[in-house]
């Protein structure tokens, strides 16, 4: 029996434009390319003396972070400001929820303050979907990371980084290394690479850090030997290893992980000579990546941060205009009734 509410394009309006940005699942290649192209054009804005464009003038962007973040929140703030929006940022983890207010009520209250866009980060997978579907469907909801599920702006900024340095995705081998199981970044990257036509996506990790069924869901190849997996790749994306993974038997020690999977200069030499080194940050030097590699000539880790602002500008402006277009459509259909 198929569920009656099966798969609907929650994040697209009736014309197929972005109105929320929740996950990369179900978004067509053209739309991802449009996001990258738009971000490219915004990169120039960041290089100007006056770094502002008026696309979101008079709009209010509300960053609601139920989980701590510095980089993502700051780059969303900057992105919104460069689009001339008013910006509020809230760390909800420390305020309302500890008073027993539900997610539903917290967001409804913020909506009542006439916000136009919510950027939400939450520890539960599916939180952004829930908000877009049940709480504030008429606001543009941008997923700033939900549990282990998705971090779509990170996924797209990684794609922008790859495209700007490698030109395209068609002939690339990309390896993602480390804690795939707990990583929303890895899931978004795998989807983005697949959609954009990358023919060789590899994930490298011990079994304890690999979710089941990756091969079918994402069309990736799984390696447990880092030396084998890194051979001749064009891009290496390292993931952060949280310290708490040593508990509960996922890994014996940081040292053993570093010896087997850490990106050292020696190991990087197995990749193509011009391979890019990427990391979503914050990095753990000496745990998943050697300092000499993180700071070395092949590292584009800081470029990723810069591109992150452009991607977030692109997504904020596109979602707002998609949501506005939907509102107009709704009004017109009401009037014609």
């Amino acid at each position, binding site marked *: 029996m198929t569920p009656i509410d099966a798969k609907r394009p929650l994040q697209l309006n009736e014309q197929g434009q972005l109105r929320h940005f929740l996950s990369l699942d179900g978004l067509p290649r053209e739309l991802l390319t449009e996001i990258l192209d738009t971000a490219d054009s915004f990169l120039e804005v960041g290089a100007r003396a006056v770094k502002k464009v008026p696309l979101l003038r008079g709009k209010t962007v509300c960053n609601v972070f139920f989980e701590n973040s510095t980089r993502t929140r700051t780059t969303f703030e900057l992105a919104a400001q460069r689009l001339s929006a008013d910006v509020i940022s809230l760390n909800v983890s420390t305020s309302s929820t500890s008073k027993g207010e539900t997610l539903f009520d917290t967001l409804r209250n913020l909506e009542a303050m006439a916000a136009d866009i919510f950027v939400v980060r939450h520890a*539960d*997978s*599916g939180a952004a979907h*829930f908000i877009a579907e049940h709480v504030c469907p008429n606001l543009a909801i941008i997923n700033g990371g939900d*549990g*282990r*599920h998705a971090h779509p702006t990170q996924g797209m900024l990684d794609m922008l980084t790859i495209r700007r340095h490698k030109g395209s995705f068609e002939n690339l081998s990309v390896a993602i290394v480390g804690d795939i199981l707990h990583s929303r970044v890895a899931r978004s990257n795998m989807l983005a690479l697949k959609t954009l036509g990358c023919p060789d996506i590899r994930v490298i990790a011990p079994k304890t850090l690999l979710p*089941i*069924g990756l091969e079918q869901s*994402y069309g990736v190849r799984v390696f447990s030997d880092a030396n084998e997996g890194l051979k001749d790749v064009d891009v290496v994306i390292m993931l952060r290893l949280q310290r708490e993974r040593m508990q509960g038997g996922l890994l014996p020690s940081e040292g053993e992980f570093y010896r087997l999977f850490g990106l050292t200069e020696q190991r990087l030499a197995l990749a193509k000579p011009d391979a890019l080194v990427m990391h979503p940050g914050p990095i753990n030097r000496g745990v998943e990546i050697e300092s000499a590699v993180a700071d070395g000539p092949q590292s584009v880790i800081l470029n990723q941060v810069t591109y992150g602002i452009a991607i977030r500008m692109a997504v904020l402006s596109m979602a707002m205009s998609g949501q506005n277009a939907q509102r107009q459509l709704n009004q017109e259909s009401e009037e014609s009734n």
Partner: protein
Amino acid sequence: MRTSILGARVIDPHSGLDQVSDLHQEGGKIVAIGQAPVSFVADKIINAQGLVAAPGLVDLNVALREPGYSRKGNIASETLAAAAGGVTSLCCPPFTKPVLDTPAVAELILDRAREAGHAKVFPIGALSKGLAGEQLAELVALRDAGCVAFGNGLDNFRSSRTLRRALEYAATFDLTVIFHSQDHDLAEGGLAHEGPTASFLGLAGIPETAETVALARDLLLVEQSGVRAHFSQLTSARGAQLIAEAQARGLPVTADVALYQLILTDEALQDFSSLYHVQPPLRSQADREGLREAVKSGVISAIASHHQPHERDAKLAPFAATEPGISSVQLLLPLAMSLVQDGLLDLPTLLARLSSGPANALRLPAGRLAVGVAADILLFDPKASTLAGESWYSKGGNCPFIGHCLPGAVRYTLVDGHISYQA
């Protein structure tokens, strides 16, 4: 009060009866099948041509939510929903507040159920005090108060030694123990079946071994203690296989499955819909097929709704923060009829899994159509259909089947000869 039900296809899976005939009840008992007794004058005649007359359905797990959770449901609302689903006898689990671990709670439930009068209620007592898995509840006192079996739900005993003692104590008094086998450690923190869907959605997985590891231990302890055991809410093909192996070596264990496990798989979670959040979780298509085969072969002899009504807020949160469970007792007959429609079961076999099978598993005085037994009768139209949700008596609207057109429609439900539901 005398009633005659005329011209129905009378199916009694227990005796194998399946023929167009008449049923006559007097004073709450079936007095004749076929010709009415001499001088029998009916006060009420139900023309049942085209309908099937079957034993009222027996549902081994319907959470009534009373006492303690009346925002989710109460005895009157949920037993009425059950009657509308064709149910005449149901067991309610011990997860009430306070927990059903004292005779007082059992008596309260039974009193209110009698008052409501929609279905016969057979409480399942807590096996351990507060369901904590540490100290035994007063099992004999609970039995005397009306509890028909004892269970600890998914809160499995952490200590195998304590569980062994509980089983031996229960065996002393020939009490039935109900297991919902799930290994606490393997399941901890999990939200969905460990498989590609959970991986894709980033939901923490509950591996199949959470069920099978616990099930293997429980079966061995059952064998050693000699206790009467029923395994409830199986979710995996491998779990059903373990039951089959135990039965094959002569262990008198029975098993049931939640009806929704025979229909849905974990793929239903794809949009994070909390309506599909259940515990134990929906599993893979292969598991569903294995469970369906076990129902067909009789290894699983009972299908239950595992009805868990919730208030709206309980499902209105990100998936992980929602409460598990589906409200479905009102759809028991039409949802189950989809198994006949699919060609999995013939009608008498389906009715066996919904009446005599569950009644035998817990030795309940129910699930039969025969002279001298209680007139607990379901009359339904197998050719009509039910638009799920068109009427709704449960307080819990948390049902993913609402809006579906399902095969079969309940026309009358009779409990002790009284009409408890009429469409």
